[in-house]
């Protein structure tokens, strides 16, 4: 009898706490809930300013979806790393606080500029707690919310899968002379990560020998390698964003992607909550969503990699767990800077 009473009390307690939890959070879309009080404060702010790093249609789509379920307006601006860096530097020096969430790649920028300058606040979204440690700042200032896996994008009408390069050192073979394209680390932070990693792995002789094969050096991010390969101006992209090549291949374009045996360089795209933003609570709600499995499943549908273990990938994409990955920690800023200069000494620029 006593036992039953005890059980009853436990059950009642559980029910009560369960109800309390149910009361404190609100489900905004299937699988995504936020704190009710936080949402109320956020809705009072009414809008959130977000510097988005995906392509514009992707940013617009995400903004629209978020606005629909949260009733919070998203003002997004699409900018690349250089643009964000210059802009936030100038904004801060003029004491302007226009943005709540910034997002871009380049780990050293986050570690050696934003953190010491205290431009970010610590905020660990629920989803971030599920990430592997490589994909988040241990101090909680920033975490990846999507990632670019870079391999050898190649033109399948010019190169067969069997003949395509399988590892980085294959690219040194004279048969690839005049057939390779790659970005410049002075213009692509993502490629700068790769150059730093590869120079540590193989030494600078790798790039000296690569130079003998006269690779085409493009301006802008690695995204600009895609048209060069699709059009057949060059046959193989060193550091091609796999998502772009997978998308093109799905649309019937003659391109494929190969993940180098030595490992795939991953560019993490971080998001951080800005200190003294105009809408700190709305910023938190949006941040919770950016780190949710439901949002990241949408991002993964365009073949990007995502850090959330519960996000679903399309069937024709190698999931994150099956890739041998190479990443550059943000603390490697010094070697990244040296790598840019060394690269420029060899390839010019």
């Amino acid at each position, binding site marked *: 009898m006593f036992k039953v009473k005890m059980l009853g009390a436990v059950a009642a307690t559980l029910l009560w706490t369960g109800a309390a939890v149910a009361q404190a959070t609100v489900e905004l879309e299937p699988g995504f809930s936020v704190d009710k009080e936080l949402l109320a404060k956020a809705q009072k702010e009414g809008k959130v*300013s977000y510097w988005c790093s995906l*392509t*514009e*249609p992707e940013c*617009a789509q995400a903004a629209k979806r978020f606005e629909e379920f949260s009733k919070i307006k998203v*003002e*997004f*601006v*699409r900018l*690349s*790393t*250089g*643009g964000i*860096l*210059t*802009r936030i*530097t*100038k*904004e801060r*020096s*003029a*004491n*302007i606080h*226009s943005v709540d969430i910034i997002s871009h790649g*380049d780990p*050293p*920028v986050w570690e*050696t*500029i934003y953190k010491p300058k205290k431009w970010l606040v610590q905020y660990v979204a629920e989803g971030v707690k599920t990430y592997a440690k490589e994909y988040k700042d241990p101090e909680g200032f920033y975490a990846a919310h999507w990632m670019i896996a870079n391999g050898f994008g190649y033109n399948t009408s010019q190169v067969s899968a069997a003949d395509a390069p399988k590892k980085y050192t294959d690219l040194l073979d004279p048969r690839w002379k*005049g057939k390779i394209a790659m970005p*410049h680390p*002075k*213009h692509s*932070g993502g490629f*700068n990560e790769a150059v730093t990693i590869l120079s540590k792995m193989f030494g600078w002789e790798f790039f000296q020998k690569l130079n003998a094969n006269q690779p*085409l*050096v*493009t*301006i*802008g*991010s690695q*995204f*600009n*390698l*895609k*048209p060069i390969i*699709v*059009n*057949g*101006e*060059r046959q193989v992209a060193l550091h091609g964003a796999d998502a*772009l090549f997978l998308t093109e291949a799905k649309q*019937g374009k003659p391109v494929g992607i190969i993940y180098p045996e030595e490992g795939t360089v991953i560019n993490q795209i971080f998001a951080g909550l800005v200190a003294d933003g105009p809408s700190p609570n709305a910023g938190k709600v949006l941040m919770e969503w950016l780190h949710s499995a439901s949002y990241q499943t949408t991002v993964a549908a365009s073949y990007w990699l995502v850090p959330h273990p519960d996000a679903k990938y399309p069937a024709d994409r190698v999931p994150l767990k099956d890739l041998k990955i190479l990443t550059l920690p943000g603390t490697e*800023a010094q070697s*990244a*800077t040296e790598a840019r200069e060394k690269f*420029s000494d060899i*390839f*010019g*620029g």
Partner: protein
Amino acid sequence: MTPLTGRAGGDFAAQASWWLAVVLLALLIAWPIGWLVLMSFEDGQGGFTLANYIRAASAQRYWDAAVNSLILSTSVGVLSVLVATPLAWAIARTNMPGRRFIQVMALASLITPGFLTAVAWILLAGPNAGLLNQLFRSVTGLEGPLFNILSMQGMIFVTLLECFPFAFIIISSALQNISAELEDAANISGASTARTMWVITLPLVRPAILAGFVLAFLEALVLFSSPAIIGVPARTYVLTTQIWALFQFPPQLGVASALSLPLLLVTMALLFVQRRLLGRRGYVTVTGKASAARVIDLGWGRWPMFVFCLLVVIASAGLTYVVLFSYAASKVWGQLPIGANFTFENFRLVLFDLDSAQKGLKNSLILALGAATVAVVLGGILAYVSERRLLRGAWAVGFLAMAPMVIPGIVFAVGLFSAYTRPPLILYGTLWILFVAYLTKFLPLAYMNSATAIKSVSPDLEEAARISGAGGLTTFGRITVPLVKQGLLSGWFLVFIYSLRELSSSILLFTNNTVVASVAVYDLYETGAWPQLSALGFILLLINTVVVAVGYVVLGKSFVGERP
């Protein structure tokens, strides 16, 4: 000789207006440039340093880049004049067939954003996949490419296509203003058409030719698009591409401004040389008794002339748009966009799915209209003040008005940002900051066009008005403005077009609600979406063509470069 000081400029209302314009100019230009100068001497913590200049001067790669920049802009300046002068002359003074068509096409090439031209030429003349090279290989069976656009020569070529219209517009409008008397006199004295042109016409438009050279030279010096898209793959780095790299991590804005400011000295030197070469009095060609210019009969020679002009505009505008359209409308590039290979998808995407394209277009049009109108009013008054030396120190006006022309866009944007994000003027986040940016950046175009026109108008007419009792402002408004209408209109048109395609400042200054069309276009380039980029570029061209057509209807025969 200072014929007008204290007379045409004498009354209070006029003096006040001249001063107002000069003060406005000083604020507009000196404020952002002042911030740049400050930044170049700043150590990042607010202290004074020379380190930025030392870093800029001690790196061999910046000297190499400076040499490449000089080669590029000198070649482009000279070639621009060589291409633009016959083109402008043929349209303005001869009976060459298809004049109006050639003119519209030349203007179309002016409208085309530079990186669209560059992308189109990579598709056309890329060493491996370029259409022209593929064609050449399949016809001749040879291995090598016919023309490798990814080279120094290729960069000069594409930059020329972007810059020669500057020279074209300014030379065209000068040719309108020449009276026929001198040419008639030469003809009557037995000179042939060719000799008349060589001995009379060309020397008369020499100020405009020089101005055209200066404009094309300066534009090539600060251009980013083709040096980036063609120069970098060609491993030919120029100052602008090196400066651009300084905005990446680790950002070195101080070094970037230290690298840009010496360009101001180059401008000053160029403008000084120009002034010395031209002197002042000798080129007055519009007098009170001007008769309309005659049409010169080229005889059989009008056909080779036509072919030459046609080739120029096909390279600069025609091919670009054919290529962009085909690229956007083909499923498989390299085959004709017809039948199963045709797709409307890319056009649909940018028209309906790309918010920034719609929003941007509206903002761009508002900004271009506003900037062009204000720039012409301000530029016209300033040119008048400077050319007629109405104020003490008027010589400085010309230099100041031309200064924004030579600061690379992205660096200038930083100056603008610093200038208009703190009291007394906080414009960031509104369209006003973009308006001020465009006005400042393109004032040189309005100024230079007005100045060239005013230079060729004799002050005699103004003096006559003054003697008859007209005030300074009345004289300016009733006598000078009607006489230089052509130059003012050219200036308006140039500022309008350049505002529509301005990118480098916009990209730092736009916000969610103030996105502009060029940013939308560039964004597509940056994400590797060339087919959509081509589609949007093509749509922009159509819209611009409508604007040009409206210009024709509204302005009639006084439209840019047209024989009145």
